[in-house]
């Protein structure tokens, strides 16, 4: 009798646990009325709160586009700050529904950590920033340097590999957040700050005198940054993936936040019609309403508009499109067809 009670309890708790996880992310999001989106603790241009406390930036725009596509309201996002160390636990435990925090897509994160990367929204690479006073012009001259590095990132591993392969020594100064790294670097506690080149540009833009600091020419790694979701909920992964694709395709097809209302009514281009929902049932296939892409693109514009307004050359961050131009412009952005 005791055994049966024991097994009965186990079965009951298993059922409860099963029932709790049976709810899909889409249902959770719809019943909560907002998306919990994991972002950085503050990286200008990518994800940082503005003067009014509203989160702004390139990664934030992806969250807003997904919120607009799913819930119809780009502001229905609950932003959760995560550090390099806490982001994966937050996603795996369900504290956040998606992670949009300049996270590198790697084999082990995809396969072993059981996440699904919904694509790449920024092709990046790891770079080094030094004070011009040091007179260093190449990363190969950094033997013996003290390097500030954010712990728990791929950059930490790349750094170890780079110095090892080139037979150089260095002194790592492990740091939790970008803000602390900035403070240590400016105080001269490290000679070099290394992270993704986009992050370096964003960090440098917030310095009192950005001109005193140089980003070295060497890019020592491939860092495809993109939004990630938990593995196993393919519908939710599809929603995030195709929202990102819609933003990229919209730029390619010339759909902007200015002309989208006009184009949504129907055009001569069947692909635009399918994407924007005036023809076909693509929205229903995703489990969303048919104007999902219209709402996503209306949130902050297409990929090009988001890039230009958050990190582009007209902003203090001043990043060129480079690899992140459309494939028709010599870049790597290539959205699969909406068909």
């Amino acid at each position, binding site marked *: 009798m*005791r055994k049966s009670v*024991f097994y009965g*309890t*186990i079965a009951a*708790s*298993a059922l409860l*646990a*099963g029932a709790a*996880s049976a709810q899909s992310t889409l249902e959770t999001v719809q019943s909560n009325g907002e998306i919990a989106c994991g972002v950085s603790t503050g990286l200008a241009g990518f994800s940082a709160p503005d003067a009014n406390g509203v989160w702004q930036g390139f990664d934030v725009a992806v969250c807003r586009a997904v919120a607009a596509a799913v819930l119809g309201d780009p502001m229905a996002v609950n932003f959760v700050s995560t550090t*390099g*160390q806490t982001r*994966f*636990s937050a996603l*795996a435990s369900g504290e956040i529904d998606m992670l949009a925090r300049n996270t590198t897509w790697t084999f*082990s*994160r995809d396969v*072993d*950590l*059981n996440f699904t990367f919904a694509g790449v929204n920024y092709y990046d690479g790891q770079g080094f920033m030094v004070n011009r*006073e*040091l007179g260093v012009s190449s990363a190969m001259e*950094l*033997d*013996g*340097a*003290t390097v500030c590095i954010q*712990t*728990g990132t791929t950059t*930490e*591993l790349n*750094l*170890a*590999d780079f*110095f*090892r392969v080139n037979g150089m020594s*260095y*002194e*790592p*100064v*492990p*740091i*939790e957040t970008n803000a602390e790294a900035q*403070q*240590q670097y400016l*105080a*001269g*506690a*490290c*000679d070099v700050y290394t992270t993704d080149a986009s992050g370096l540009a964003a960090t440098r833009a917030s310095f009192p005198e950005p001109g005193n600091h140089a980003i070295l020419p060497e890019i020592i790694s491939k860092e495809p940054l993109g939004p990630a979701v*938990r*593995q*196993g909920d393919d519908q939710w992964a599809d929603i995030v993936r195709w929202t990102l694709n819609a933003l990229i395709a919209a730029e390619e097809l010339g759909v902007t936040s200015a002309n989208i209302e006009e184009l949504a009514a129907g055009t001569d281009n069947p692909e635009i019609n399918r994407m924007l929902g005036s023809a076909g049932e693509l929205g229903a296939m995703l489990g969303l309403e048919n104007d999902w892409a219209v709402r996503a693109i209306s949130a902050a514009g297409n990929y090009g508009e988001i890039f230009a307004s958050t990190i582009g050359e007209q902003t203090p961050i001043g990043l060129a499109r480079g690899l992140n131009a459309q494939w028709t412009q010599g870049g790597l952005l290539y959205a699969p067809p909406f068909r």
Partner: protein
Amino acid sequence: MSSTSDLRTRTAPPKTAFRLSMLLYDQRYRSITIQIVFLFALMLGIAWLVDNTINNLRALGKDFSFAFLSAPAGYDINQRPIEYDSQMTHGRAALVGLLNTAILAVMACALATVLGVIAGVLRLSNNWIVARLMTVYVELFRNIPTLVWIIIFGAIMTESMPAPSAFRGDTPTASMLFNDSVAVTNRGVYVPAIQFSNDLGNLPLGVVAPSINWLLVLVAIIVGIYAHKVILKNATAVQNATGIRPKTWWKSLGVLFGPVALLFIFFGAHLEYPELRGFNFADGIHMRNSLIAMWLGLGIYTGAFVAENVRSGILAISRGQTEAAFALGMQPGKTMRLVILPQALRVIIPPLISQYLNITKNTSLGLAVGYMDLRSTLGGISINQTGRELEGMLLMMLIYLAVSLSISGAMNVYNNRVKLKER
């Protein structure tokens, strides 16, 4: 149960048949019933937790394995008490972190004890200014969280000390202290290191390979301390027999420092001074900002608590003890050493154990200033790079538990030696 009740039948009331309701209404059985029920509830609770964990791990598609400990770590650690590079395993990285935790804990415990004893004694001083200054120290440090102190010390080191480049050039803006032997920079403090010309190499002991030279020095120190105790014992025996205590200080000095000095001469010991080379100082011992911030933060903060323990220990000894010692003609120094302290230690040691445990556990705050302790290596980077949160956290809990219990055990042995012997 039946055999014991048979023995009691002579005095027990006539035996009544056992009924199930007696489990609840009979005082003889009630407490056992309650305990068994509670035990079952506890076991069910644990079973539910374990089952829930297994189910959720399965739902996430994760297994439970410690295999990651033998995979290459891939990251570098700045403070390496033992040999380590990025191609060694996560297990090795965890060991480096554990040693860093131990180094910090020992340093902070020593600092806290020294500061605490001084401040505790001085707080009882008759000098108004000294006593009040110590009160200010104790209240200031005791009432501000240790993490805040650690960050303050870290910020002081980073922000207000000169960069290594300030030591360079014909007219440097900063200079080294103590005859060019110590450099205080915003990357840490560089002090001279003792090096041996006759290096006997390392003793391979599995995972660690300590230097044979230093092992021999350690042996010499231990032998010296033991010989010193023997000399003192003999002196006491002579004193008991003849009433005259022979002079022992020169013998003690000889056995304590003689062998070590001889070894140093034999090994060709010399100081290696830090020297500015390239981006940083090289050679010497580099005490990083993170270590200094943690050491000062933990040591000075906990020192305030130790001071209160010491003060309470001394106050616990009644004034009559001092007066009795004085009446026997003892001088104040001997009174303190032979009468007050041995009794005060009984009161001081137990709370001191818990302060040492606090320091050891608080070393896990190291991540705040980037100190690579166990929490930062195994519990931080390794977990993050491998995604083994559950395994890493369990292992870390187990290690901290083992370390704390060992400290507690060792201190209890010492406590048993100084506590009141009841015969």
